[in-house]
């Protein structure tokens, strides 16, 4: 097989540097928001004792899920040995690492005491899925970086099969852990379900591929390069398949709820009575993230389909995480309860501006890691790097 030509992303006047400047500003603003939250405390956010996990977790979960799925192309190339995807293998691994860096930054900086992060290693509780996820996330990062090295440095190419398989298995375990993180919460009826694990695996495959489908043409544009139309079309159809599976599992999750005591109220809240959550469910998760994304994916518009999937996916994570907390806990089933804490009533959650700035900062971290790495290492195949050589298969 002929060696694939990779190159650094080209510096096009008016593209790379201004865009990096915008992302740098977003990162500075995000870090500023983190500092304000750390000093003033979470009282300045919309997060409360009723809704302890808010917008920062939505951004973080979205990025971490995307990290796992962004590896799709690398897995197709290395595990399934599809040569036509091989040129994009390094970029696929890089986007995975970049998303993980962004997501983990958010998770850590949102802690009440981020300065004590080391305790999750030195004093890890083996019962805690959260503690396991710390191991899974850092391990995934290491495996993805190792795989990246095997593809960009030919001296280590012989090791690529092992890292590829390991990364593939690792990401499924990681996404299972991320899903169970929420699925084990007995007091949060909307998400207390083992179905969360397969659902999150499917969401990860979907969002990661969508992010990749946006990152590839984005980076190609930055460097003045091109993407291969046929390959984008194929990936677009694969995205459509993932979107369909995710929608199916979302239906299964709600169907399972119907069999639980009081489950009908829970489902009715999400589907009919939940106000903004119902609107986001139908408009974001089902409308944009499923129906529109499917039509575009199979209609030959992969980039538009990916954009719809990302926006709809963000709405999906928001609805899944926040509505589960807004719904009052069933402390005394069969009784109507009230209290000064708001028991029995829906909680309100209004994300504060500082949370948006913080979350967008996490996205900017992911984007910046990807762009800077493309400038430092030969990761993009020549056509996408702007070097003018058609190197992507198809």
């Amino acid at each position: 097989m002929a060696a694939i030509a990779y190159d650094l992303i080209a510096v096009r006047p008016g593209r790379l540097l201004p865009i990096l400047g915008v992302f740098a500003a977003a990162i500075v603003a995000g870090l500023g928001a983190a500092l304000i939250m750390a000093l003033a405390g979470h009282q300045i956010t919309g997060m409360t004792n009723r809704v302890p996990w808010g917008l920062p977790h939505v951004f973080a979960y979205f990025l971490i899920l995307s990290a796992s799925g962004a590896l799709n192309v690398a897995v197709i190339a290395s595990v399934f040995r599809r040569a036509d995807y091989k040129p994009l293998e390094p970029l696929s691994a890089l986007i995975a690492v970049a998303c993980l860096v962004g997501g983990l930054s958010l998770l850590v900086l949102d802690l009440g005491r981020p300065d004590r992060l080391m305790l999750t290693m030195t004093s890890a509780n083996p019962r805690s899925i959260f503690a396991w996820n710390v191991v899974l996330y850092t391990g995934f990062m290491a495996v993805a970086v190792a795989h990246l090295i095997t593809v960009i440095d030919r001296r280590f190419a012989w090791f690529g099969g092992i890292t590829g398989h390991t990364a593939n298995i690792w990401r499924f375990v990681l996404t299972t852990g991320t899903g169970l993180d929420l699925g084990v919460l007995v007091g949060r009826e909307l998400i207390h379900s083992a179905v969360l694990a397969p659902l999150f695996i499917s969401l990860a495959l979907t969002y990661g591929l969508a992010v990749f489908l946006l990152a590839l043409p984005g980076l190609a544009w930055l460097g003045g390069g091109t993407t291969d139309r046929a390959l984008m079309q194929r990936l677009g159809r694969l995205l459509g398949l993932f979107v369909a599976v995710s929608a199916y599992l979302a239906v299964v999750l709600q169907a399972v709820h119907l069999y639980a005591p009081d489950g009908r109220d829970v489902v009715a809240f999400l589907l009919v009575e939940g106000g903004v959550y119902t609107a986001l469910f139908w408009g974001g998760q089902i409308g944009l993230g499923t129906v529109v994304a499917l039509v575009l994916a199979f209609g030959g518009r992969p980039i538009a389909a990916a954009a719809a999937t990302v926006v709809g996916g963000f709405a999906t994570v928001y609805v899944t995480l926040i509505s589960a907390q807004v719904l009052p806990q069933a402390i005394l089933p069969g009784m109507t309860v009230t209290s000064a804490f708001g028991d029995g009533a829906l909680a309100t959650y209004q994300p504060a501006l500082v949370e948006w700035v913080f979350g967008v900062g996490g996205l900017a971290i992911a984007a910046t890691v990807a762009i800077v790495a493309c400038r430092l290492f030969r990761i993009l195949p020549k056509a996408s790097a702007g070097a003018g050589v058609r190197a992507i298969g198809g």
Partner: protein
Amino acid sequence: MTDPRRTSDRPTSACPMAETDAPRPAGRSRRQALAAFAAGAAATMLAPGVVLITGAAPGAARPPGTPASPAQRWGLLIELGHCADGCARCVEACQTEHGWHAGDHGAHDPHWIRLVSATDDTHGRTLNLPLMCQHCAAPPCRDVCPTHATFRRADGIVLVDRHRCIGCRYCVMACPFSARFFTPGALTDQRPHMPRGQGTAEGCTLCVHRIDQGQIPACVEACAAAGGGAMRFGDLADPDDPIRAALAELPTARLRPDLGLGTAVHYGDL
């Protein structure tokens, strides 16, 4: 030095709540302590032959170096029929004892103990139910905590080590009773025996600092002194503790028994 918590289910470490693990004398059961205290106690006739001692301290402290005993299981019995509508002595006592306040910051506020008004959907009877940490035998808050900050002491009291807590709020997500709270800002008016901290989790400690000094929880004491005398505190594992006799006599229930958490707060008349 002996770690007083070495029989608990967590690794030993420097303890930020040293007061909470303060020594307790060995070789003296709670029953004996109660007997020694009967003189100053308010006694309540529960049923023929069943007298519970409330509102008075057992008066025995744990000596230095003695671990909390796994033979004990501290718990509460709250007879809701005695909780008058509008009585909030337990809540006030807890606030005074531990220095937390609720009211100004909505759902940001902690509610270590709160009154839940519960009306039965079938027959319409309304109860005034004091709700605090249920000190579960299998606490979800402990299981999810990534750093062992939440731990269960050998005698069943579930606590947060504020020096290990990273403020992830996973325990707040996991508690099925909303009995865990996150401190979202700077604190003033702290009590020396109850160090709290911005960015960490907290909740009812069952007044562990008082128990270790041979006293009963502040809410129980206040309820007996000025409330309806609804609350009892005792060792659920001690067959001779009066709370066991009361539990055997009275119709009681626990919250969400379907979850199998083994809660240590028993409610009468529920």
